[in-house]
């Protein structure tokens, strides 16, 4: 069949198919009475993206009494189905752009690479969305504070109060008083100590490191995904050249899955990946430790036991129990010896 005609026909009937798919999933979304977005995009994936949250909520509402494993499997089934739609659309889109080159018998490899560059840019944006690796110090600091809301809230609240007080003073006398003496005397009540300040700065530095590591890691993953997709398109072109055909969308998915897993495995074995993964783990751990230090300084202030103190108590209990166990064993051996001696 002429692919161009196939493509045009596909777009024509896409609207009808989309309506049917939406109707099916829409009934699920109704379970949660979530707003369901029926957008008019010609791409089913965009339609599904816009409604993903509503459908997920619908699944959760419908499966409220279900076994948690079954509920999660239901959500994953839905997500997997949207992945198929997305994969098919993307393949057809790239194929469509390669079509003139293939028809002209020109070098499709070059054309494919061009297309893949576009895909790479898009993928990288998606993969690193929400990460903070650039910007002014102030922007990064704000993003960090937003990220740290839970563990740093008391500190942030007090810092805000102090800042507001300063601003409210306004006149020269108040400024002179506040800068030379006022802050010092308000420190103990506001809980804003130098220790916490230092801790937050160290946590911030660790957070910036982690963001960079996360970015680098996501770059590798997205590049690997693109390489896998490129390989997949190569495979499709080879199939076409040899006159072979995939029998169904599911066949196509299976082929994609095999190609992608293999590409990821090859990437996972490289030194670059191992290094990026290793750095990511290290920076996450370092950030976690810094977070904990700040948390523990707050805990100290409120006379609450810290994680470190509880761990230490656990360690002592553990050692004592081990000792008791050993003593019991020795006592049993001595008893057995004595009983043996008496008999």
């Amino acid at each position, binding site marked *: 069949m002429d692919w161009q005609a196939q493509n045009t*026909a596909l777009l024509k009937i896409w609207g009808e198919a989309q309506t049917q798919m939406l109707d099916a999933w829409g009934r699920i979304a109704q379970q949660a009475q979530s707003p369901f977005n029926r957008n008019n995009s010609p791409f089913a994936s965009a339609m599904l993206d816009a409604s993903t949250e509503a459908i997920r909520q619908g699944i959760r509402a419908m499966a409220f009494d279900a076994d948690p494993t079954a509920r999660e499997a239901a959500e994953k089934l839905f997500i997997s189905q949207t992945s198929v739609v997305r994969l098919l659309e993307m393949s057809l889109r790239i194929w469509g752009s390669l079509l003139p080159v293939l028809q002209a018998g020109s070098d499709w490899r070059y054309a494919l690479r061009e297309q893949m560059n576009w895909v790479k840019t898009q993928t990288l944006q998606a993969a690193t969305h929400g990460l903070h690796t650039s910007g002014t110090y102030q922007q990064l600091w704000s993003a960090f504070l937003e990220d740290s809301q839970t563990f740093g809230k008391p500190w942030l609240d007090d810092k805000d109060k102090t800042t507001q007080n300063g601003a409210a003073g306004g006149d020269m006398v108040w400024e002179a008083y506040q800068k030379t003496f006022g802050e010092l005397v308000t420190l103990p009540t506001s809980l804003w100590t130098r220790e916490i300040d230092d801790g937050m700065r160290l946590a911030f530095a660790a957070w910036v490191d982690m963001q960079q590591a996360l970015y680098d890691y996501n770059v590798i993953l997205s590049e690997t995904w693109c390489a896998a997709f490129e390989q997949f398109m190569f495979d499709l072109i080879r199939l076409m050249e040899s006159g072979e055909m995939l029998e169904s969308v599911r066949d196509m998915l299976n082929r994609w899955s095999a190609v*992608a897993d293999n590409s990821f495995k090859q990437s996972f074995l490289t030194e670059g990946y191992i290094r990026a993964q290793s750095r990511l783990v290290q920076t996450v751990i370092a950030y976690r430790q810094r977070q904990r230090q700040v948390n523990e300084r707050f805990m100290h202030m409120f006379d609450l036991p810290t994680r470190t103190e509880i761990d230490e108590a656990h360690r002592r209990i553990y050692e004592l129990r081990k000792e008791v166990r050993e003593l019991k064993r020795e006592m049993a051996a001595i008893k057995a010896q004595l009983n043996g001696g008496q008999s």
Partner: protein
Amino acid sequence: MIPEFPLALSSEQIANELVEMSRRAVEGVRALSQVRSEDIAYGITPKTAVYHDDLVTLYRYTPRVVAPLEPPVLITYALVNRPYMIDLQEDRSLVSGLLDLGLDVYLIDWGYPQRNDRWLTLDDYINGYLNDCVDHLLGSLKIEQINLLGICQGGVFSLCYAALNPSKIANLITMVAPVDTHVPDGLLNLWMGANGGKPSIDPEKMVEALGNIPGDVMNFGFLMLKPFELGLQKYLSLLDTLDDSAHSTNFLRMEKWIFDSPDQAGAAWAEFVRHFYIENGLIRGEIEIGGQRVDLKKIIMPVLNVYAEKDHLVPPASSKALEGAISSSDYTAVSFPVGHIGMYVSARVQKQLPPTIADWLKARCSPINLG
């Protein structure tokens, strides 16, 4: 010639397949939302707790013959994931298969470590809990030796234990046990830091920061080994079996097991990663448990080593390395053409594995009379 997209379907057929897939997926979601926990019960073979210590419970499965084989088989499973994988359901139960063939089967359940267990070491697990379970059996049954069957990480524990206490073990069976972690093609090994060069992770630092290692972290690593097969294809395969409720519940049991991952006691995990993976200490004879060196050459009892030919978690070469490391003159290796998980759940393996183990043991043990 006009190049065609290599999909042997018209545009209408493609759209129809997608619509049909959607319809099936919605049906699937509806069916899954009706599944209650009792529908996917696991661990069905009757058993009794015979010994308990801290988190650890020793179970005895009810024998099915009057005169089970002596000595009994003690199964030690990995700390990662739960041991009910070997007794998932009636037709996929290694335990049930062994009982049918006249074996007396005990199992150590390591439990779910809590935060206060972060200081537990491998010494506690091997010289403590495992040894206490063995001693309990020896004492209560008035026997001198048991048969030990170690699975995956539990296989490593059983090797260490057998090397440290050869007189207590009559026969040793290891299943998919990682012995040499520096063999090529082991992605998990590599991620665990077994690259032979600079380790890619610092297990002690991880434990310092996290306490116990969360089960979800471990699981994420396992799933990332085959992200598309395990994260996408697997769920779509449900569409093909929606009408087969037995198949769907099997799937969910497996799914439950996969995500039922206990946290790993911090100190023991760090030791395991450091000494067994990063340093490859078991095969090199450099492991020390509770101050005693684990010398695999002290394993002189008969050994049956079972491994999976397509194992992506424990490469076959990693398990096969055992042969050259021990002194036993009675060594048998058996493999099955499946992956790591297939060893427990493949219908074919479940037909062949229990008799393989039972026949091997029967050739080396004698039945006892319970009457």
